[in-house]
């Protein structure tokens, strides 16, 4: 029973409220898990654990070895994108569950 945008104005009962919170929180944790996987992959994965293997490949058209690029440039760019994606997804989630701020 996921409330959609049209039910926003409807007052919820206490039990509904608890379920709504629970569903919202689970959706939130799923978003976090997805974004943090990418976070882990680009930094700890590409920048550290697999850096030697990736260093055998070049970023096309540049002097960057791929592992080196991830460790000193690519991971940072990805982090920025991750936070802005998070902002976007969470704002939508807040609205869908009626927890957004006026």
């Amino acid at each position, binding site marked *: 029973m996921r409330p959609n945008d049209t039910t926003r104005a409807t007052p919820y009962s206490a039990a509904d409220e608890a379920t709504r919170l629970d569903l919202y929180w689970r959706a939130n944790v799923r978003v976090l898990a997805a974004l943090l996987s990418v976070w882990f992959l680009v930094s700890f994965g590409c920048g550290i654990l697999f*850096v030697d293997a990736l*260093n055998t490949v070049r970023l096309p058209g*540049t*002097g960057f070895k791929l592992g080196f690029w991830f460790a*000193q440039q690519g991971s940072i760019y990805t982090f920025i994108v991750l936070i802005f994606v998070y902002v976007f997804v969470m704002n939508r989630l807040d609205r869908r569950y009626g927890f957004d*701020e006026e």
Partner: protein
Amino acid sequence: MDVQAWTTLIVGVSFALYIGIALKSRARSTGDFYVAGKGIHPIVNGMATAADWMSAASFISMAGIISFRGLDASVYLMGWTGGYVLLALLLAPYLRKFGRFTVPDFVGDRYDSRAARLVAVVAALFVSFTYVAGQMRGVGVVFGRFLDVDVETGVLIGMVVVFVYAVLGGMKGITYTQVAQYCVLIFAYLVPAIFISLYVAGHAVPQIGLGSTVTGTSTFLLDRLDGLHTELGFPLYTERGAPRIEMFAATLALMAGTAGLPHVIIRFYTVPRVRDARLSAGWALAFIAILYTSAPAIAVFARTNLLTTVSNAPYESLPEWFKKWEGTGLIRFEDHNGDGRVQYVGRGFVDPASGEPVSNELHVDNDIMVLANPEIAGLPNWVIGLVAAGGLAAALSTAAGLLLVISTSISHDLLKRTFVPSISERAELWAARGAASVGVGLAGWLGIDPPGFVSEVVAFAFGLAAASFFPAISMGIFSRRMNRQGAIAGMLAGLAFTGGYIAWFKFLHPELDARENYLWQISPIGIGSVGMALNFAVAFGVSRFFPPPPAHIQALVSSVRVPRGAGEAHELAVP
């Protein structure tokens, strides 16, 4: 105009600007003083956070560290930026919803425990004091090198400036000054970077120049540098030298430490809504990344420049900047073999022609890569003055943020919330100002007469924040079951282990400070990640033996998890 005149002019104008802004935005209530009345726009807060965060070490030392350690130094780049992802996703929005003034507030209220609050206050004070001492030292050093005043006078001038805007303006004054300081420091960092990138790689964007070919050739800059390194017996610049586990642990400790540093966290209390806290973290990282992605480029340009200029060059014919910086002790040349030329080579280097071992004759300090960059590249005098102003902006903005944590910890966490709950708003505001003044004095004293551990501050501050605040706060939000017994036991275990390990190698037995003696090859920089794991493990273990937190605490956790109603939480907190 000569360098001295330009530097005096630019630094003077920037200081006048900071003080002017502070006087215009004086704090009138504790809400203004602690969290700037919670009315800061997210982009403005992002910029202020970036200045708050980027310290003298980021501005002056980081490019140099990368320059000397190549790929291994990526731990700083990833650690100090990736922490913002943790902060944005796991801490900032929930803490904003919680809506009190400080980090110990959250720890104390969530775990409903005065003891937990006190542990958090002590950790916050310790982290902030060690860190602020390094900033004041940085101020003194910049003054000493560029303006020809001694370190003591330099620190004193810095203290007066910080005093005016942190003590009078509180968070409100600090926020707007930090915005100005961000602009000064990023401009000062980028101008030489762009000039040099154009000159070396023929591209105005340093991040692209780094991956380009050397002007007029078809050799990539990075290949050229790796070639020079091979020739001179240094480890390859773009390949890994440190063990994976050390890089992993160090990156994790710096990330969790970044997310847990109190002076960064409180910046997210200053925005109006939860969604602004999320957005603000994104802007903060974007502003920080401008400097952090330029630093690797500066590192490579400077390294290549240094190697080609000094390697095997006759000492007599070295350029003027070399002699000038030799006077400061940042570059030292000892002619071991007496041939009058500079042999700058890696450890165990053997001359391929004669088969004789050659010893290194040149010692170069990390800091020189940024400080002397404009001179090495032959840039105009005003750029040199700009770099001085940028270094000062970085140090002062961070010092101010830390002083605010110190004063808030004392007036709010210790007086108002623990020992003198009946204190009036007026008295609390004056207590905050008094604590900030004492903090400025202590920080200045530590800066003038550093107790020898300023360079170890990084390991300490980040390790302790990673092992205490990050787990305590995240468990408080993500686990309803976590109770005070678990949280306190976890924090104490994390702090004791991490603090003990760092103290063991840095103070008690510095002669043992080498990879073969470390636990699992993890250096003191990275040990905070083990401390953090220990904190989580102890906390979950201990919490099982005690009842879950009472209903009103569980309700608090539920309320923190949803964004709606952030304003009201604030009203409840400040009657």
